[in-house]
């Protein structure tokens, strides 16, 4: 983990309330970004807390770090207005991310819901590079909310669902879990709690890795502001997570 002042290279809208942010970082390693996040300091003294945003993609050669974020409040709204050329402080990479399979060639499912989709992409690329088969299932609210479906299509099969059926099938990511996909080796997921719960229920015997979120203060494990109940007691989403094994988190436990 390191603190750097980084230049914004690009900050563009890619869907309804969703922005893509390219940052120029230094000395980040490709292996250390999968499923991790950074804490962004908004360039205005008015905001005391940083904003935790997961890493979507990373180019180790150019050291361009790509984040995708949704406008959820005053801070992210302000971030969306920042122009290329602006310098912002970035603390990262933070947290324990997605673990890659240790052996063999696996069939891996990437299952993302809404603003949970971004962190799955860098993971998907790494899985393909390691020779695994990747199938992606994405769920969004409606057509206006959809982003990056084409990028995932380059990794393997993509199944798309929208709640209103305006793109893909009408329904949720769980609609796609047929026998073939239920025979996959591992699933990686990020998205709303109800979705994560539904996946654990639908795939009880499959190895799974789920990414969580929480309101954070320090972002690095010191303040205990972001805890979640697990089978082994309270853990910090920022430092012990954000990725936990399926079945580890006790929903509603704290």
């Amino acid at each position, binding site marked *: 983990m390191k*603190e750097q002042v980084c230049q914004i290279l690009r900050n563009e809208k890619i869907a309804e309330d969703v922005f893509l942010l390219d940052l120029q970082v230094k000395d980040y390693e490709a292996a250390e970004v999968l499923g991790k996040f950074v804490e962004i300091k908004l360039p205005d003294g008015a905001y*005391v807390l940083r904003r935790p945003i997961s890493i979507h993609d990373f180019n180790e050669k150019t050291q361009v770090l790509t984040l995708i974020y949704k406008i959820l409040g005053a801070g992210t709204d302000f971030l969306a207005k920042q122009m290329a050329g602006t310098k912002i402080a970035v603390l990262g990479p933070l947290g324990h991310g997605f673990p890659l399979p240790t052996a063999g060639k696996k069939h891996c499912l990437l299952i993302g819901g809404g603003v949970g989709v971004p962190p799955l992409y860098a993971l998907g690329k790494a899985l393909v590079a390691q020779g695994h088969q990747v199938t992606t299932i994405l769920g969004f609210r409606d057509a206006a909310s959809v982003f990056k479906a084409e990028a995932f299509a380059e990794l393997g099969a993509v199944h798309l669902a929208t709640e209103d059926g305006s793109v893909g099938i009408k329904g949720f990511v769980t609609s796609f879990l047929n026998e073939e996909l239920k025979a996959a080796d591992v699933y990686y997921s990020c998205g709303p709690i109800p979705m994560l719960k539904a996946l654990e229920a639908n795939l009880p015997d499959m190895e799974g890795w789920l990414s969580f979120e929480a309101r954070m*203060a320090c972002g690095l494990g010191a*303040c*205990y*502001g972001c*805890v*979640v109940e697990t089978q082994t007691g309270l853990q910090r989403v920022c430092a012990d997570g954000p990725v936990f094994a399926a079945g580890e988190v006790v929903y509603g436990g*704290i």
Partner: protein
Amino acid sequence: MQNPADHKYSAIDLSVDLPGLKMKNPILTASGTFGFGEDYAKLYDLSILGSMTTKAVSIEPRRGNPMPRIAETPAGMLNAIGLQNPGFEAAQHKINALRAYDLPILVNVAGHSFEEYIEVTKALSDLESVDALEINISCPNVREGGITFGTSAQMVEELTAKIKKVSKKPIYMKLSPNVTDIVELAKAAEAGGADGLSLINTLLGMRLNLQTGKPILANGTGGLSGPAIKPVAIRMIYQVAKAVSLPIIGMGGASTVEDVLEFLYAGASCVAIGTANFTNPMVCPEIIQKLPEALAKHGFQSAREAIRFSHR
């Protein structure tokens, strides 16, 4: 961190001496914002700091409050952590690990009852790795203990005396700002035999969810910290320093080297940085690096000279 310009101010003496805390500079970290140091140790050498205050330690492990525990506010934040800590048995190992660094350690003590405060104090003050104790009688986020003990002058004096009797290390009573008259409580702590005072703790605050109308924090209320509370902290330290001669660990929204000067002037012998660590995790080393020049520019040859400057 070092640059040639520093050489110009190398004669400025940053050291300050408080009971139990012989500090190389007047900067320490505030309890609850720094854990037991292991997280920030990944970013810089903790030996840079003048001192460090650990998270509150209770006898038994405490889970703390339900989530959400954090909410941002204008120039600040609310926290309702609820004193989550691993309890004395586990905490002592984390405290002992701090011996790897060159700085005195201030350990924060929490309790549900007089008996618990006394038990934790006894256990902690026995540790060689503990240099002083900060007694938390001002946490606004727990139903029992914390603030309950810090709002009555009689209770403050009695508890201070009982803790002082069993503590082998100097004790600093951490005062709550959520009282009518903090000076009264400061005098009570002094009368009870405290070696020093620590103020201010967080202010009681709340934020509401615009969709549901309910408080954002699961606990309802939380403690307000950050730059928003600095004027309250400065005023209270100023008033307490006028009435009481005990050394003061000052805190409450400090985030710049100029803020540190203000706290020293008001009466603090050292200044704890808390919430600012979240805004900028490198804030402490940066302030320490800027301090010699800031002191020199205001006519001081040492940090000690700036303490209580407003009262001269």
